[in-house]
């Protein structure tokens, strides 16, 4: 059994894995042994036992999420949605899985749908991922032709139709309820929870939305068992995780490593350390909407609780590195520009608050900051930053790099304001 289940078909293989290659490497074995043969509740118990946590950012236990789906009554549709709208700046892990090994996701979705009795599935995918879109569609066609998808899968009572839906392109569509609204053809505005999608999701029906990487893991848990999965992790959380690093490191990239791998190992061994001439100033451990950590946190293991204790979130596990020759204010201003632009415009703190933050940061970066701007930034980061203050998690996520930036890089802000200029030489 491999210790890199998610990328075993990807590592060392140049092309992408088609159905023949996928099956020759043991693919769809989990589907064949499960569909029509194993009680869906047993699969759910297995998932709970494995303690798989969502890989999309929030880390919610997948088995528990699924257990909230009400018992099937009547013939109404139940939906499974793969959230493949990977738009977090600095995050590119799902793309790797979908482009290189599309059947892995499809197999995970078949198993997941079977578990929750979903009859229709959607892969809601970022529009720019045109290679993945084509390969997923090709894989779905092949799987359908082989009786692995569609009506009466493998001659069982279970049917599952799977569609690829290409997002029209808003970051907020990655929020699961905004995704559902978008899938319904409505404005991509998040919904208030409760009710949760498990109860009233897509078109008001029971729905599960999971991240691509989460669904890919399901295949391997079903194939290899919960104990095997748990043994993969180095700490509390089981399994492996796709970690990534971008910024001024020697080898930016994406690697499947055990859950709980120390940040130092990811950065120094896999990313090859900082690029020549650059020092590490800080990093966002889990993508753009997580709090900054600094070199003192390098020995923190990358798993949900430990990163949380360090003051940030593991998020998607793809780090963005801030080096000593780049301006922290400039980086934060750039991030907030993105988040302000991607606000759906529904709730006041996000809609009005983010552009205000962006306006202040742009001004400070341009050398036009004033001392009282710091007070406003502090106040806005608290006003916008707490979950519950806003309609969804978009704006609180947006405030994480700002609030932590104000904590760790306050002197840079002050230098900008007092010196009326950005002290960093901008490299072209």
């Amino acid at each position, binding site marked *: 059994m491999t210790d890199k289940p998610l990328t075993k078909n990807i590592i060392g293989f140049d092309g992408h894995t088609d159905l023949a290659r996928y099956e020759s490497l043991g693919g769809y074995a989990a589907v064949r042994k499960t569909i029509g043969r194993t009680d869906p509740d047993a699969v759910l118990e297995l998932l709970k036992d494995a303690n798989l946590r969502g890989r999309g950012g929030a880390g919610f236990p997948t088995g528990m999420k699924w257990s909230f789906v009400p018992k099937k009554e009547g013939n109404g549709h139940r939906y499974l949605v793969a959230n493949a709208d990977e738009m977090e700046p600095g995050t590119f892990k799902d793309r790797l899985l979908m482009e290189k090994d599309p059947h892995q996701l499809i197999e995970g979705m078949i198993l997941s749908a079977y578990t929750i009795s979903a009859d229709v599935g959607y892969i809601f995918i970022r529009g720019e991922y045109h290679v993945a879109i084509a390969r997923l569609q090709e894989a779905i066609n092949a799987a359908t032709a082989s009786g692995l998808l569609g009506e009466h899968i493998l001659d069982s009572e279970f049917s599952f139709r799977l569609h690829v839906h290409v997002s029209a392109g*808003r970051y*907020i569509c990655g929020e699961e309820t905004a995704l559902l609204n978008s899938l319904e053809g409505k*404005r991509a505005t998040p*919904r*208030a929870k*409760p*009710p949760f999608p498990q*109860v*009233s999701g897509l*078109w*008001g029906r029971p729905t599960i939305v999971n991240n691509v990487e989460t669904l890919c893991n399901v295949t391997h848990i079903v194939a290899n068992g919960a104990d095997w999965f748990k043994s993969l992790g180095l700490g509390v959380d089981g399994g492996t995780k796709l970690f990534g690093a971008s910024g001024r490191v020697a080898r930016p990239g994406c690697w499947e490593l055990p859950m709980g791998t120390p940040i130092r190992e990811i950065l120094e061994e896999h990313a090859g350390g900082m690029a020549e001439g650059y020092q590490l100033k800080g990093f966002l451990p889990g993508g753009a909407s997580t709090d900054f950590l600094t070199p003192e946190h390098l020995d923190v293991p990358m798993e949900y609780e430990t990163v949380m204790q360090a003051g940030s979130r593991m998020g998607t596990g793809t780090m963005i590195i801030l080096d000593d020759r780049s301006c922290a204010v400039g980086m934060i201003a750039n991030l907030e520009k993105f988040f*302000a*632009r*991607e*606000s*759906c*415009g*529904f*709730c*006041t*703190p996000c*809609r*009005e*608050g*983010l*552009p*205000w933050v962006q*306006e*202040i940061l742009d*001004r400070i970066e341009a050398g036009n900051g*004033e001392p*009282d701007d710091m007070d*406003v930034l502090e*106040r*806005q980061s608290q*006003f916008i930053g*707490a979950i*519950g*203050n*806003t*309609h969804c998690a978009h704006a609180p996520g947006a405030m994480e790099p700002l609030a932590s930036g104000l904590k760790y890089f306050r002197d840079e802000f002050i230098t900008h304001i007092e010196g009326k200029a950005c002290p960093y030489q901008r490299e072209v």
Partner: protein
Amino acid sequence: MPTIFVDDRAIEAKTGDNLLEVLLSNGIDVPYFCWHPAMGSVGACRQCAVVGYANPDDTRGRIIMSCMTPVTEGARFSVQSDNASSFRNSVVENLMLNHPHDCPVCEEGGECHLQDMTVMVGHSDRRYKGLKTTFRNQYLGPLIGHEMNRCITCYRCVRYYQDYAGGNDLAAFGSRDRVFFGRAEPGLLDNEFSGNLVEVCPTGVFTDKTLSKHYTRKWDLQSSPTVCQACSLGCNTYTSERYGEVRRVHNRYHNEVNGYFLCDRGRFGAQHVNSPRRIPRAGMRNADGLYEPVSIPDALDKVKALLNGKVIGIGSPRASLESNEALRQLVGPDQYCNGMTSTEREMHGVILEVLASNLNVPSMMEVETFDAILVVGEDVTNHAPRLALSIRQAVRNIGQQLAADTGISQWHDAAVRELEQDEKSPLVILSPMTDRLDDIASDTHRLAPNDIVSMVKQIIEAIDDNKPSHARDIASTLLAAKRPLIVSGTSLRSANILKASANLAAALASKNPGTGIFLCASEVNSIGVAMIDNTGNAEDLLGNKPETVIVLENDIDTRLGGSLLDEVQNLVVIDAMDNPTASRSSIVLPAASFAEAEGTFVNNEGRAQRSMATFAPAEHITPGYQLLSALGGDQLSASGWQQKLAAEHALLAGVATCAPDEQFRIEGSRIARMTHRASGRTAMLANVSVHEPQQPLDTESPLAFTMEGNQARAPASLRPYTWSPGWNSNQSIHKFQDEVGGPDKSGATGIRLFTGSTELTGFELSEFELSEEADADLIGQVHIFGSDELSNEAAELSTLIPQPYARMSSATAASLKVSHQDGLAFGDIIMTVLVDDEVAERCVVYPITPGTEALESARLSGLQKVAGYTAPADPLRPSLITTDRTS
């Protein structure tokens, strides 16, 4: 009733309410924007934040949105904590980033919910240094103005317009802080309830153009509680005036009648009071046939002299009970008729019988609780528009049921709509052509009026007969409902339709006592005058060759056909506005409009409601009942006539008590029609004289003209406007409700006159009147704008009246040898042929609009194809100025 603790005060909360509703119902001020009492919560604005505590040991709590929080036993909250108030302050500060500082020139100023909430949270200091977002405004038609820069993005407008009112041409576009609320392209808002946007918007984005054109600060308006005159539903309105002109009409909340909303005919139609066709003074026709102005006393003397001869009086379903009774007393009961045609009297007679029967006649708000509705030949949206809005809510009962089953609170609006999707409670429509409610109907049948009657008969038979048929399907739908409702009315001018509807309701009621029937009458007081006298027949009375005919506020020439008046020697017309009858009068007496006279009106459900004069009429103009009093008989004030009505007509006993009389005082004071904030009375006529003129004395009601008097604690039936300290906008209404959405704390407005006890035996349907050519019927189509005599005179609405058309199916067109956009003439009336296969076979539909009245008696054989006719682009959409700036 869970008990909750708010800042350590114990409060009994109403089960099912959200926390915001509980707080407001208990007099605790919490600012809010996106929540609306009729539309529930979505949690967009985050303004109503309070602190919620997890348990008794929790001292920190966390910010929660009160509108999104259900109340549970023992839950603890704080409105006053620093956290909560600082958060609410930040919300306003952020909302204000892009809001223009244009209050001094903003129409909403002084009545602005955003101003109120800003003051409430204490935000006063601006720290934002950036530029404001700006938008381009759109032309939205002649009724609604658009000023997008003021938008605070609360989403109320689109939630109201799309979700509540069923409109589909107003939407939210774009994202972040550049969300634009408007149409895909500039143009007329295509919804009969667009005017409510003005009241739903918490700031000045959507404005009332009929007010804009002669704008007055809200606090300088003189207002009174009035009853809408535009149809029979009796919606409660506030009519407001300045300088002798009606400036605007706003909704007056009534928990059983109109709730929070009006239709556009009601809101904008009252501008007819300002029509240049108002009759300014008395006139007498001289020997040359020209009118000569005369003084009122001279005119009255002249009429008095005629009273010794043979006199009849023709009353009016659009005049008040008081005026009608005064006329009846003047000419004597045998010489009085209520001024309706025979068909109208027959139809309203049916409605009266239904009201008096033990059938359940719900109020309009109660209609929203019925879970299956059959509409029988009534064009609700065009004829009794406000009811359509209630039917739109009724079809959501299945969604509310689904939500309850799923544990989703009724107020959780987005979640309920998400769950219900396109599920609708059954709504079946029997109509001769497409109906504005088709989009929410589960089943529609296009039938000629007589076929509608046949279908209803079949439905009655199918109640006990399982044979498969359309009728059986409809019967099954109605039988399966907990509360089926039959809706019908007079728009197709068929008594048989009403009778058949009543028979069906009675048949259903024998199976299910929850059955209801809601019949729409024709005019504001059709039911009232039918209760005074529904036997007197104008045609018979005129046939007796009276020497003098007194016509009260009724265009009898148009209504009955002019030839009946040809031999009348002395035609005395008492009316507010010129019309064909007034134009042929020998003596015309200028009557006050509804806005200048007190009056009592009985709506379609038999509810007597008092409408109070908004302002004193101009010199020479007098309320109808006062003119008639002055002609002799009883010299009575309004309340005198009300008592007379109560004494003379057993069923109208409630008329005397449905609002306090002129003796009523609050601590010795009258009730002022202007707010105490009014600024300008002294300045109003300062260009004429700096001496403030003496204000007119209101002898008829306990209200005082202009400012002097008490504003607080007026009974609901006399309250001239809603205002409460800190609540200057219409949102102050919750301060007057016993709970959010509940009845008025200070008493009911109006009295339902019928107790409904008699057993309905079932109507005999009259034999169908087959048209001479059995191949087609000419059907008059009621239009919300165009078919109402008074609102047609409102300047803005008059631009929306459709041009004559003849709408028919392709088969009918072929049989008439015409095609789409041909011209078809009947005398002077030229109609554009519209081929529409949604029109029932054998029907030709024409609009009931000024000038097409003659078609009512026309036959198809009388129609002639017009050679070389060029059709207008869209006869249904009259030529509108497409932008405000082209003129």
